[in-house]
């Protein structure tokens, strides 16, 4: 029975795979619980695939999942989760910037009764302007929108209980918002400070061109976090705004009619505005109803809270 599954997405990390495996193995031998290391090859184009095969052949703890092409980090993690068998799942980056020696810290925190424990890179070893500043800004934004208060949502080193992983909906590029995704599944989230090392081998896959996508995903998540069970409340608010606008336009129109101060063209335009806003309001209400329908038909499982608080090692 595997207890701990360590899931690591690998994309062009030929120089890091062997040291990563060695460090993880050393730490896991110390912990002494049955473990497996799942390396997900997300369509690497360097020598990673063969090195992965060699590592898997040499150590029975290692399992390699090869994806048909590069599907991105969310998909790679989801593939690793699908294959993982442990009751606790730990994720980290394949670039050796996370230190496997921190895994015991995460496990201890899980034992306190949390469902998700996130690493906090208190002393980041990255370039200030291109990595740390954008990361800090993104973190502030994500925290304030999703309401999940963490110092470092972007840290890949995290530990989860299986129940959360099984419920978590990870797709697209939502790996950036895993704490928020776990919050949607009612997880209790904690963080612990972890070590962080500068990158030794390979290239960083980080870039800043994704701001637009991040903002759109955040918009989605903020809606889902607040209104997942009742989207009508959200669309209803927009509808009310339209209705208020329409009523205001109607008021101006009636005032002009009473005072006979408006010309015919002006009244026509005001009337059109009233109709437009009321029609839009109606449409938003309808959208909200469709949203309700989607939610009602989509997920028939009972919303639950993880109640099992046995220690992670029990």
């Amino acid at each position, binding site marked *: 029975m595997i207890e701990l599954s360590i899931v690591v997405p690998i994309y062009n990390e030929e120089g890091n795979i062997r040291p990563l495996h060695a460090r993880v193995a050393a730490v896991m031998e110390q912990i002494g619980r049955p473990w497996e290391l799942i390396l997900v090859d997300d369509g690497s184009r360097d020598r990673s695939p063969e090195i992965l*095969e060699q590592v*898997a052949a040499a150590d029975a703890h290692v399992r390699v999942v090869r994806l*048909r092409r590069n599907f991105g980090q969310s998909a790679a993690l989801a593939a690793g989760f699908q294959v993982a068998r442990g009751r606790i799942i730990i994720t980290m980056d394949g670039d050796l910037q996370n230190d496997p020696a921190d895994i015991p810290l995460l496990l201890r925190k899980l034992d306190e009764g949390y469902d998700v424990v996130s690493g906090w890179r208190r002393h980041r070893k990255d370039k200030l302007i291109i990595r740390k500043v954008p990361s800090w800004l993104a973190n502030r934004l994500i925290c304030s929108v999703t309401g999940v208060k963490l110092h470092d949502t972007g840290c890949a080193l995290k530990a989860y209980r299986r129940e959360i992983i099984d419920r978590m909906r990870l797709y697209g590029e939502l790996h950036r918002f895993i704490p928020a995704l776990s919050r949607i599944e009612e997880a209790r989230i904690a963080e612990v400070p972890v070590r962080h090392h500068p990158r030794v081998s390979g290239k960083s896959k980080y870039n800043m061109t994704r701001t637009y996508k991040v903002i759109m995903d955040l918009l989605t998540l903020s809606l889902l976090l607040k209104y997942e069970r009742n989207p009508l409340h959200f669309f209803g608010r927009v509808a009310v705004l339209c209705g208020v606008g329409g009523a205001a336009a109607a008021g101006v129109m009636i005032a002009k009619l009473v005072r006979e101060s408006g010309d015919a063209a002006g009244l026509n335009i005001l009337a059109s505005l009233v109709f437009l806003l009321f029609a839009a309001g109606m449409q938003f209400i309808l959208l909200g109803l469709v949203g309700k329908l989607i939610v009602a038909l989509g997920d028939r499982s009972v919303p639950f809270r993880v109640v099992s608080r046995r220690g992670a090692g029990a």
Partner: protein
Amino acid sequence: MSVMLQTQREPVELESLKREARTRVSIVVVLSDSAREIGEVVAGLRHLAEGLGVPYEVLFVDDGSHDGTFDRLAVEIADWPQARAARLRARFGEAAALAAALQLSRGELIIYQTVRVRPNPRDLRRLLERLESGYDMVIGWRFPRRDSLLNRTISRAFNWMVSRLTGIRLHDINSGVFAARREVLESIQFYGDLNSFLPVMAERQGFKVTEEQIEQMPGWFRQSRYPKEYLQRALDIITVIFLTRYSKKPLHFLGFLGAIFSLAGLGISGYLFFYRLFGFGAIAGRPLLLLGVLLLVIGIQMISIGLLGEMIIFTHAREIREYSIEKLIGQADGTLP
């Protein structure tokens, strides 16, 4: 996709139609109203199939013919033990016929053709050889193409457009002839007319797709294109962009459009607001006011529909698997939980 099936004799359970023996190659032929050429098609395929030298089966799927195709077919294949024929209860279209063929066939490799294309059986063998050299899907490229000038021109434009939009490098995307590994077809959801885009979908899943020139048999070919179909093509292109690029992220697409509309509306409304505020004149009579508000409303609605799309995806996200695993190495090799 549920398809009503009817076999040569009595309606039979689907399971009993499946071959139990290990079959290497399934040759699937979709036909409708092809009574005239069926004899020639069967003879050509039989010659090809018997020369393959591997266990094979041939499956004819009659997509709701009205001209006695099925009866002719039953006679033609009566002395050919590897051949079977299935009839759909009505005309369901090529995607449905292909789905039915997948259900009924057993081969690891599938050679698919619609009779309307009339490929030279000799060339089908080359498609198979490309598969065996490591490709997952090989599309037949009708060259030279026997078709009307109009059809050829439109098809060229269509293929060029799809290439540009999806990045796939093929000359004849929906030629109606291809060979593919079974797993490719089973991992793609095809419905409606989207079977035209099978290679695009396959490549999205990470399968290796290529093409191979095929010759079309001389003589008869069907004039079956109507303006409606060309319109359908154009709409299909939009569908495929949406499905391949944004299917899991509708808001990335609609949010962009919505933002443009909203910003334009906001700009106009803001201008009018300050115009009124600083007393340059009344705005109630200005059509610009209507335009500004209209753009704003449309923009917000686009974003809202994008959000609704996101909700649909999120609600069903546990059923969606957007990656495709090539292999699993390590304990319990090859088996997925």
